[in-house]
């Protein structure tokens, strides 16, 4: 078992090898066929999966302390920065999620991309994503985490812009990258401030100031020092990075724009793995957080959860609704983290990842069949493909917390909330669960049961796609029987009843094609709380502001150069009029000058003599 932990670097580097193989294959044209690409990718992910599962078992049973290896990257004076691997319980859980979902999504993609072009480029990106994500999960310190954090953002940008020939995809990819960049910028500033703070103020000089393993000793030193404001600012910057990456309240726009990516990409990146990295960061730096920051996390989590669920109930685009749903569920996890329930947050994350991934894969299949992502335009798919319906139902039941895995996680969350006495938060969570159940079942009824006229479908069965989705559903159903329930009581019953009422509401809504909300609330929800408009407004203000500098450049600096040149030209034109060809004028000028010089000499001589 130790073999797997000691050689964990293989999981990081194997996808890179596959990338190089694919690229050289395309370049030298010896292995351009798609089968080899897909098989190599699946093989590397499979090896990674085996590693991850063995490490998971090992860390949860016999391992006592985390295994850490560090390689020096660069350094100066006595400050060194490292890259390395850090294996403990948390990273093994995330690694397992990544590898399993990645394997299933790659299997699905093999079937999904079968008839599309740019197959090799897609799998190159998927492998690079595996590489960066593994590096991120196994990182030992904040700087390495930042490195792979940005790399994951870049891969996500490249994958969102995969269909680059379309104009709106190009624009969305830009927005995704720039909004992610804002978070990265704050994160980097936080790292720099943290380095300064620990080296110069706290005088830690052994180079371990960014390491996760030294977090516990760090906290003691922090609490002994008297710099609460700076410490809170540093933590705030790091948390902003996490908030942006996990698409929490002001920054969820990038996740909505990222839905232009192919559906398997959405399943992999934007629901299950990359967006959970904000939560991962907070878990890693948890011993450092102060009560203020924790309160902030709770508030942002709650706002996100409630508002995004509220927006999702009126969306008609399937993937957009799922994106808002992802953001909302992540808000749940943030709330749990802020209250201190780390194991609950992790369990919720595990279950949510599989559930949401299955929903996105389902959405991809729906798009392939009906050629549309609008739930109003799909024919009643239950008649054509009962598999999809069953799978959607399974994941819907899990997402709304009625059955399977979601039930366990929601019940854990509600019980801990009640036991710790946060009843307002409990109420808000219940309200949001009502919305969650409502929108996911509304989607079910709209897609699979109702018929609004569009009969244009192409039915094709692909074994890989179906098998991938079945495999994923196993992972959705299984946690329901693995994770033990804590306490079946009245609270669970209330939440189940709320869920059933929401399902009923959804059924009525689907039948009458109308949502029962006051008109202005409905408008707010449809317009996504006007957040895209606010983003457009901010960016247009920014562009106008920078245009000022462009005008300064054009009208001041260019003007100065032009004016200098013109003035000198004019002066030279004026002076050159002296030379007019008339010799008599030359004679008079020379005599005049001679006279002047002579006068100066004589006067100065007289003056000197006089003095």
């Amino acid at each position, binding site marked *: 078992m130790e073999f797997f932990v000691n050689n964990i670097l293989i999981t990081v580097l194997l996808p890179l090898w596959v990338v190089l193989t694919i690229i050289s294959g395309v370049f030298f044209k010896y292995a351009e066929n798609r089968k080899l690409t897909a098989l190599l990718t699946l093989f590397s992910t499979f090896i990674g999966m085996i590693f991850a599962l063995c490490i998971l078992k090992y860390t949860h049973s016999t391992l006592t302390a985390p295994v850490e290896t560090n390689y020096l990257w660069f350094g100066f004076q006595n400050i060194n920065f490292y890259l390395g691997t850090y294996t403990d319980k948390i990273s093994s859980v995330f690694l397992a999620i990544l590898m399993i979902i990645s394997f299933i999504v790659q299997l699905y993609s093999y079937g999904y991309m079968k008839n599309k072009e740019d197959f090799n480029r897609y799998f190159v990106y998927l492998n690079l994503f595996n590489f960066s994500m593994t590096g991120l999960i196994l990182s030992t310190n904040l700087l390495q985490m930042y490195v792979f954090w940005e790399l994951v953002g870049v891969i996500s940008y490249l994958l969102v812009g995969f269909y680059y020939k379309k104009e709106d995809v190009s624009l969305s990819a830009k927005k995704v990258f720039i909004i992610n960049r804002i978070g990265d910028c704050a994160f980097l500033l936080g790292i720099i401030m943290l380095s300064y703070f620990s080296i110069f103020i706290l005088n830690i000089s052994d180079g371990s100031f960014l390491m996760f393993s030294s977090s516990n000793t760090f906290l003691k030193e922090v609490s002994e020092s008297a710099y609460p404001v700076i410490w809170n600012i540093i933590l705030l910057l790091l948390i902003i990075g996490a908030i942006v990456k996990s698409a929490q309240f002001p920054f969820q726009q990038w996740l909505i724009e990222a839905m232009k990516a192919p559906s398997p990409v959405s399943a992999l990146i934007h629901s299950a793995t990359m967006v959970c990295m904000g939560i991962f960061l907070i878990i890693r730096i948890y011993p450092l957080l102060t009560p203020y920051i924790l309160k902030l996390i709770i508030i942002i989590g709650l706002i996100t959860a409630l508002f995004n669920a509220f927006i999702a109930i009126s969306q008609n685009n399937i993937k957009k609704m799922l994106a808002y749903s992802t953001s909302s569920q992540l808000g749940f996890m943030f709330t749990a983290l802020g209250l201190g329930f780390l194991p609950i947050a992790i369990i919720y994350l595990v279950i949510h990842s599989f559930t949401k991934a299955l929903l996105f894969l389902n959405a991809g299949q729906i798009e392939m069949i009906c050629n549309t992502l609008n739930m109003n335009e799909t024919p009643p798919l239950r008649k054509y493909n009962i598999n999809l319906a069953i799978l959607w139902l399974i994941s819907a039941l899990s997402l709304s917390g009625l059955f399977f895995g979601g039930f366990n996680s929601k019940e854990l969350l509600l019980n801990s909330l009640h036991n710790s006495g946060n009843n307002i938060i409990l109420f808000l969570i219940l309200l949001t669960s009502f919305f969650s159940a409502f929108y996911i079942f509304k989607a079910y009824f709209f897609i699979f049961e109702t018929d609004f006229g569009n009969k244009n479908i192409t039915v094709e069965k692909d074994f890989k796609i179906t098998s991938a989705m079945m495999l994923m559903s196993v992972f959705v159903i299984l946690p329901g029987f693995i994770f033990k329930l804590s306490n079946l009581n009245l609270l669970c019953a209330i939440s189940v009843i709320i869920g059933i009422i929401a399902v009923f509401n959804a059924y009525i809504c689907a039948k009458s094609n109308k949502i029962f909300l006051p008109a202005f609330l409905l408008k707010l929800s449809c317009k996504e709380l006007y957040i895209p408009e606010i983003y457009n407004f901010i960016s247009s203000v920014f562009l106008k502001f920078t245009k000022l500098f462009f005008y300064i450049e054009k009208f001041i600096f260019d003007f100065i150069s032009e004016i200098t040149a013109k003035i000198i030209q004019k002066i030279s034109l004026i002076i*050159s009029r*002296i*030379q*007019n*060809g*008339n*010799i*008599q*004028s030359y*004679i*008079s000028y020379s*005599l005049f000058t001679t006279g002047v010089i002579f006068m100066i000499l004589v006067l100065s001589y007289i003056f000197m003599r006089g003095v």
Partner: protein
Amino acid sequence: MFNITLLHYLILALILFFTGFIGLITSKNTIKILIFIEIMMSAINLNFIAFTTFKNYIFLTGMVFAVFITAISALQSAIAIVLIYLIYKNKETMKSEEIEEIKG
């Protein structure tokens, strides 16, 4: 009458010089320019001779120099006449304001 001193001769030479100069720069006929140059030369001659005379003939270099100036001015006007004749043959004009080839 009063005594005629060196100063009077110098002032005469000055007036003569400036007359020649003003005529030089304002005359339109090129031959007139030559004549005015001659007037300036004679003013300079007068200057030298006046200095020699009124300093009691101690340094005769002034006289010698006056002789040189006269000789050379004669030569110079001979060459100038030839040049003006050639310009006249080329450009058909005697007006100095029409000869303005050297300009910037």
